[in-house]
C-alpha cells in the first residue's frame, strides 16, 4: 500500500464515523474497522510484519483520523503497542494485534509534567483484555477493568497506575508523530470550519470575515498550524531516516502541534460564538478531541522540556 492509497482509505474510513447515538460521550467500537484498514503496526518494516510505511504513514493516517475526531486510540493501540512489541521481538503478538486482538497500554507510561498525579488509565483499543507492561522486558498482564469513556469519546479502562516510564526512542517518537498528526488534522479541520463560518455569518451588515481583527487572528492561527505541519514532517523524515535527532524533532513537533491545536480550539469556539459550544456542533467534538490529546500525551511545556533533554537537532 502506498502512502497515497493509505490517505484515500483513511479519508474514507474517517468519513464513515457518524454520530454515535446514545449517552453523551459514549463511543462506538472503531477498532475492528481500523484493523481492516491495516492500521495496527503500519509503521513497522515489512519484515517485522508491518506495512513499512513508517512515520510518514503514521502522519497520513493520524491526520485523517484527527480531522474527523475518530475516537479510536490510534496512536496508543495501533502505533505504540505494535512498535513496543516489535522492539521486544514479539512478532507473534504484533500479528495478533493486527488480527484484532486488543492490547492496551498504561497511559502513565507516557510523558507528563513532573508532579502530575498518576491516573491508572489504560488506553489503546477499547475493551482490551490485556495490558502491555515493561518489566523491563515486554510482558502482557491480564486486564479485567471496567470500561470507561474519555471526554472525547475514546474508550479506556481503569487499572492500577504504572510506575515505569517509556524510554525515549523510536517507539515513543513514532507515537508522538501520530498524536501530533491527529492534533494537526483536528486543528486544520477546525480552521476550515471557522473560516467557513466567518465567511457566512453576517453581523453589522457584513460577513464577519470582513473584520480585519478577525482576519489577522485567523492568519496567525494558520501560521501556527503550518509551523506544526513542518515540524511533524521533519520529525517523520528523521524517524524514517534513522536520524540521531529524531526524538528531539518529535518533541518539537508535539510542542508546536499541541499549542497550535489548542489555540485553534479556543478560537474556533470563540469565533463561532455560542453555536460552537453546542454538543452537536462538529467544532465541539473536535475541541474535546484536542483537549483529550493534550492531557493524555503531555502539553507544550512537557514536550519543550523533553526537547531540551533529547539533545541537539542536527542541521540539514
Amino acid at each position, binding site marked *: 500500500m502506498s502512502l497515497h492509497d493509505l490517505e484515500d482509505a483513511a479519508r474514507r474510513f474517517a468519513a464513515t464515523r457518524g454520530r454515535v447515538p446514545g*449517552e*453523551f*460521550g459514549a463511543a462506538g467500537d472503531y477498532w475492528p474497522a481500523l484493523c481492516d484498514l491495516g492500521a495496527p503496526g503500519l509503521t513497522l518494516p515489512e519484515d517485522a510484519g508491518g506495512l513499512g510505511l513508517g512515520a510518514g504513514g503514521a502522519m497520513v493516517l493520524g491526520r485523517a483520523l484527527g480531522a474527523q475526531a475518530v475516537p479510536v486510540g490510534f496512536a496508543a493501540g495501533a502505533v505504540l503497542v505494535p512498535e513496543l512489541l516489535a522492539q521486544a521481538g514479539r512478532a507473534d503478538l504484533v500479528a495478533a494485534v493486527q488480527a484484532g486482538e486488543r492490547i492496551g497500554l498504561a*497511559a*502513565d507510561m507516557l510523558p*507528563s*509534567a*513532573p*508532579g*502530575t*498525579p*498518576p*491516573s491508572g*488509565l489504560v488506553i489503546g483499543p477499547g475493551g482490551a483484555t490485556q495490558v502491555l507492561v515493561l518489566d523491563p522486558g515486554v510482558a502482557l498482564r491480564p486486564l479485567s477493568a471496567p470500561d*470507561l*469513556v*474519555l*471526554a472525547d469519546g475514546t474508550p*479506556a479502562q*481503569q487499572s492500577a497506575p504504572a510506575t515505569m516510564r517509556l524510554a525515549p526512542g523510536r517507539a515513543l517518537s513514532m507515537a508522538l508523530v501520530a498524536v501530533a498528526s491527529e492534533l494537526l488534522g483536528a486543528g486544520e479541520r477546525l480552521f476550515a470550519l471557522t473560516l467557513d463560518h466567518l465567511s457566512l455569518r453576517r*453581523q*453589522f451588515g457584513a460577513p464577519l470575515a470582513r473584520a480585519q*481583527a478577525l482576519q489577522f487572528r485567523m492568519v496567525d492561527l494558520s501560521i501556527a498550524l503550518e509551523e506544526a505541519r513542518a515540524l511533524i514532517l521533519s520529525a517523520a523524515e528523521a524517524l524514517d531516516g534513522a536520524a540521531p535527532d529524531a526524538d528531539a524533532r518529535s518533541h518539537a513537533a508535539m510542542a508546536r502541534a499541541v499549542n497550535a491545536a489548542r489555540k485553534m480550539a*479556543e478560537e474556533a*469556539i*470563540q469565533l463561532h*460564538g*455560542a453555536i*460552537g*459550544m*453546542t*454538543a*452537536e*456542533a462538529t467544532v*465541539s467534538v473536535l*475541541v*474535546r478531541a484536542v*483537549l*483529550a490529546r493534550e*492531557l*493524555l500525551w503531555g*502539553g507544550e*511545556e512537557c514536550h519543550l*522540556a523533553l526537547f531540551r533533554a533529547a539533545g541537539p537537532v542536527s542541521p540539514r
Partner: protein
Amino acid sequence: MIPDADRAFAEEARDWLATRLPATLAHKVRHDIRLSRDDLTGWQETLAERNWYAIGWSEDMGGPGLSPLRRYLFDRTYGSLPAPHPCQFGIAMAGPVIHAFGTPEQRARFLPRIRQNRDFWCQGYSEPGAGSDLAALQCAARREGGHYIVTGQKIWTTWAHWADWMFCLVRTAHGARPQEGISFLLIDMTSPGITVRPIRTLDGDAEFNEVFLDEVRVPVENLVGAEGGGWGIAKFLLQHERFSMSGAARSRRILGEIRADAGDRLADPGFLRRLTRAEVDLLALEEIDWRLVQGAGGEADAARLKIRGTEIAQDLSHLRLELKGRAALPLSEGFLQGGTAPDPVAAMALPTWLNLRKLSIWGGSNEVQRMILAKGMGMGK
C-alpha cells in the same frame, strides 16, 4: 484604609453566610456539580432573609442600600465562599430596569417579588441572526388593542426552562436605524404560545435554551419605558452592573484552591511560573475593581473588567486542567449530576474548562467589549 465598622460588617456577613451555607451545597459549588433549580432558589431564599439577595439595591428600591465600599466588601467576602452565584437576571437586570424606567404600578408589582426571590427571571435578547449585532433582532411585537402579539425566536436564554418571567427585547417598529423600533417587554413564561427547548452544550450541561414565541399575547402594561426605547434601556444595563463584571472574588477562591491542590506540582518551575502569573493578573484585576469603589465607573470600566475578568477565569480553568492532567480525562456524567468520584476536582476540571468558554462569548462578547473600548478612545471614526 477600611473603616472598622465596614470591616466588621464584612466579617459578620462572612460568619453568617458560612454558617447558613449547607455543606451539600458547598460541596456542589466547590466541585462544579450541576445545581438544580431548588439548589439555587433555596439559597437565594436564605439570602433574601437578610434582604441580601438584592444586595445591590438602594433603600429607595427596597434593598439594603449598601455603600459602594460595603458592596465591594460583601462581594469579596461572598466570592471567597463556595456559595452559588445567585441568578442575576431579576436582581441585576429586570429589577434595576423596572426601577429606572418603569411606572409606579410596574415597580409595585414586580420589584418586591424580585427582591424576595418570588419570581425567577431570564433574559430574552439574542436570536439566531442577532448575537453580537443585537440590534439586528427580529422578534416582532405588533400592537393589537390592549396587547402586543409577539412572534419570534430567542436563543442562548440561560435558565429559560426554570423561569417564571422573561424580559425581552422585541421589534415594535422598523426605523431608519435598527436600534430604533426596539422595545422592552416583560413576558410571563406561562403565556400560551411559548415553547422552551434546552440546548445541550459541549460540557454536557443544558443551561441555555431556545425560546419560541408564537403569537404570544403580552399586555401593554408589560412594556417598560416608551415604545421604541428598548435600545436605550439595553445600553443602560450594559454599564449598570459593574460589580458582577469582574468575577475577581470567585477567581481568588479558585486560585487558592489550585494552590492548595497543587502539592508536588509546585516544584515544576513552568507550572509555578504560570500560577504566579495568574496571581499577579488577578491582583491587577482586584486593584482596578478597588479603584472603581472610590469613584463612579462608566462603560469603559465595565468593558475592561469584563474582558480581563473572563480571561483570568478561563486561564485558571486551564491551570486546574494542567494540574490534574490525565486524571481529568474520564467522562463522569454521574459525578456531574451529583454522584461520587475518586478525585472530585479532577472529575470536573475538563467540563468546567469547556463550560467556561462561554464567559468570553456571553454578556456582550469580548470582541464587542473591545469595540466599545476602541470607540471610546476615538478609533474607527
